[in-house]
């Protein structure tokens, strides 16, 4: 791993990683600083104390949780670096590199059945309960009470749009052009979604930023689509200079385009540090200027896999293998599946099963899992939309008609939440949903 773009001197700071100085660019997520400095193990897992490193870089897994300045369980991928920040690994003794409790993982190769273990065995049962209690939990109490928080803020608008990616921005463009007031919430610091941070797609439409009647709130994560006596509203958490702030957005319509989460692939040792989601890798390369691997193995399927392979090659990496798990492999990829990853505290190789050629070992310094994202159906489901499982491609999606209307009249959906797709088709669905809202609100 290396920085493709050197840290500008005026933004170069140092973090305190358990006594080791780690160079960082001010404001970048501390997980990025640690990856760029070659630190792999950021945590130990809850039960088996397996080594863990960043996976999704999107606050949708739990593999980069750290204690930062005395606060437990913070997503290292969401904590902006500040000079002197104290970063500590959790759940490890005496250290995350050499953790004696990782013996649990070796002693119980087939896993621990916490339901049946020592159940009803005199003495052993009590001892186990005591030991289990002390091994359980992740992170110690915070060092201090919370600082004063800014008061909750409330907004009212015509349409609340969640997500500033391909679908949300296309919707914003249509709503803005029609003069429909809207508020668009984006959880990242910048709009654009995969345009800015995803694997390049050949037919992606140009990025259109909202204009006209819209208001944009970036760094704002929707927490729930609730109701109260006044009706439906979004609750969101907004990262502001004065501190995190609760934001309520009341609207007559909700257009949900939150995209999806990085799914994991169930191969053996799929949690080893160095196994990264495809979107995490493209984000590292494109937004953060960090190349996380020189010789990665790419595995997965879908439109992002070839784009990611191209992006990594363009950035100077030499992929060891591009493995396509689908029935019709992408150009430049070989058909097959990943059996297991190897390495003690980080990925050093993989065993693959290549179609027609059997199993073999491949040396590599990372595994990049590029799968279509799992639709983030949570908010739509809060409101009462129906979520269905589609055997092909094997994920849940929100049920909606051609205009993105769900069974809840005031809630529409667009983009990957309907089932992962290309940026062009996500944008088209955003435009259709917004168009339907414009027609409806003109009536």
């Amino acid at each position, binding site marked *: 791993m290396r920085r493709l773009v050197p840290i500008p001197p005026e933004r170069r700071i140092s973090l305190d990683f358990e006594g080791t100085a780690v160079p960082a660019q001010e404001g970048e997520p501390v997980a990025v600083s640690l990856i760029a400095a070659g630190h792999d193990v950021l945590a130990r897992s*809850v039960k*088996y104390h*397996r080594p863990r490193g960043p*996976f999704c870089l999107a*606050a949708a*897994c*739990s*593999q980069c*949780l750290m204690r930062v300045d005395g*606060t*437990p*369980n913070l997503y290292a991928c969401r904590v902006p670096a500040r000079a002197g920040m104290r970063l500590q690994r959790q759940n490890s003794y005496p250290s995350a590199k050499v953790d004696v409790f*990782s013996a649990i993982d*070796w002693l119980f*190769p087939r*896993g621990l059945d*916490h339901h*049946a273990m*020592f*159940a*009803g065995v*005199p003495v052993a049962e009590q001892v186990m*309960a005591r030991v289990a209690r002390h091994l359980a*939990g992740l*992170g*110690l*109490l*915070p060092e201090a*009470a*919370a600082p004063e*928080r800014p008061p*909750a803020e409330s907004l009212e608008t015509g349409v609340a749009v969640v997500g500033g990616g391909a679908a949300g921005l296309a919707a914003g463009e249509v709503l803005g052009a029609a003069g429909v007031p809207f508020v668009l919430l984006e959880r990242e610091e910048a709009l654009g979604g995969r345009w800015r941070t995803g694997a390049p797609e050949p037919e992606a439409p140009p990025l259109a930023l909202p204009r006209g009647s819209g208001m944009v709130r970036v760094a704002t994560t929707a*927490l*729930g*689509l*609730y*109701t*109260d*006596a006044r009706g439906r509203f979004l*609750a969101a*958490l907004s990262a502001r200079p004065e501190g*995190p*702030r*609760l934001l309520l957005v009341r609207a007559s319509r909700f257009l949900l385009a939150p995209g999806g*989460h990085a799914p*994991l692939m*169930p191969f053996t040792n*799929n*949690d080893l540090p160095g196994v990264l989601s495809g979107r995490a890798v493209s984000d590292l390369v494109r937004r953060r200027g960090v190349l996380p691997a020189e010789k990665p193995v790419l595995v997965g399927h879908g439109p992002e896999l070839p784009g990611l392979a191209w992006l990594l090659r363009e950035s100077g990496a030499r992929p060891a293998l591009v493995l396509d798990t689908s029935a019709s492999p992408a150009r430049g990829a070989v058909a097959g599946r990943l059996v*297991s990853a190897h390495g003690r505290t980080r990925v050093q190789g993989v065993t693959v099963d290549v179609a027609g050629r059997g199993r073999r070992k491949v040396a590599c310094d990372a595994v990049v899992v590029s799968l279509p994202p*799992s639709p*983030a*159906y949570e*908010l739509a*489901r*809060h*409101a*009462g939309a129906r979520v269905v*499982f589609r055997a092909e491609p094997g*994920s849940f999606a929100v049920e909606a008609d051609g205009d993105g209307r769900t069974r809840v009249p005031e809630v529409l959906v667009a983009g990957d939440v309907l089932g992962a797709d290309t940026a062009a088709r996500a944008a088209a669905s955003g435009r259709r949903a917004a168009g339907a809202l414009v027609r409806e609100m003109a009536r």
Partner: protein
Amino acid sequence: MSKALLCPCEDVTLGDVEVAIAKGYRDVESIKRYTGFGTGICQGKSCLTAVAQVLSRTPGVAPSAVLPFTPRPPTHPTELSILATLGVDEREVPSQGVPVSSGDSSTALRPATPVPARAQVVIVGGGVMGLALAHNLAKRGCTDVVVLEKGYLCAGASGRNGGGVRMQWGTSANIELARRSIELMKQFAGEMGINIWLRQGGYLFLARSRAVAERLEKNARLHNQHAVRTEILSPDKARDLVPELSLRGVVLAAYHPEDGVIFPWPFLWGYAQAAQKRGVRVETFTQVLGLQTSDGLVRSVQTDRGPIACDTVVLAAGAWSPGVARLAGVTLPNEPHRHEILSTEPLKPFLGPLVSVLDSGLYFSQSMRGEIVGGMGDPNEPAGLEQGSTLRFLARFARALTEQVPILGQVKVLRQWAGCYDVTPDNNPILGRTPGLPNLLQMSGFVGHGFMMAPAVAERMAEWMVTGNADELFTRFNLERFASGKLEREDMIIG
């Protein structure tokens, strides 16, 4: 260390999920509870799809039966101190919560096979009461029993409570029942082969007003008469037990060290598995549509999988009991009331007792897994079968908890949910025969503490049913008492 992880938050492996499916847990909600997948900090974002794929490849599982688990707000871990900034109008009535039902018909998971045409006993409700009763009947030789549950095991209040167990009650009957229950809980793992993680860290009740303080003192004297050694503590002594507590405004505390917390879900699996081994049929995803009566007896139970002719029907449907009773023309005085609850990120152990402020209904404890699990009653909560979550609750609870334990301000809420208390006019259960329908037995109305009472109540109920020997419990708490007005009110209800 060769493991394929499906849920890295909780270290749930592919093998764990396959075992759960092989044991018969064939819906996502049950697999979640049995394996623990999706209960960690990511709340299912990275694991749910992978688990659904494994389930969908299981022979006999149709894609339409692969439903996602209910996504609980907040979708991102959120600090209590931030939630506490939301102003709440205390006079307002709490509204409908989320997730709102998606109208998914329960038929997606309904077994295609018919129910047995006949059974000696049909128990309506597969919560802890019904399953504990089924187990106790089977143990006494009565195995021709069918338990009907409209959802998965743990779908109702038995799967939604905070897991508190205590002997600190306001009436002799409840103190004795709770004491026996805790005794049985200690033997549970040995008898059933499944851990329930009983941790006797005590219950610490705080009183903020003179009136509540007097109630605690009066009840402590009653406890001591029953050899339950509740102590009245000064605020300083209470702080010795929980150094993180702020005791501003606290008048005194009551503490009983043998109270504690358990993990509710394994009780249901343990009772169900033990009963099934003896021949009891536990039919999940099966709705009761009617109770056919004639000549002063219930003759059969109509379900959406066919009728079951029977000799005895036990109504153990918790907050849903009044609705089921109505099918036989019986009116129960119970009213369902939503109680909201939440769970935080898991922390290393620091909190011994379950702490409750009786004045406000705030309670919180630390689970075996390290999460702070807590809730708080809302005096304005209307009656109704509502199980959705509100932001109002998060704000009220967050403010109350961070006032009591300021160091928790930066601790993050992972998920919130709600269940229904099954409230009776005197806060005591309804047990025994139904006037006019003697073979319809009542077993409901436990006002939020049914879970901890179930082992003892089910034991006595099964004994009474099988032997026919008189037991004062089934006259003391029978349905007739509401007509005759002989009520003995329980005053140690949290929330």
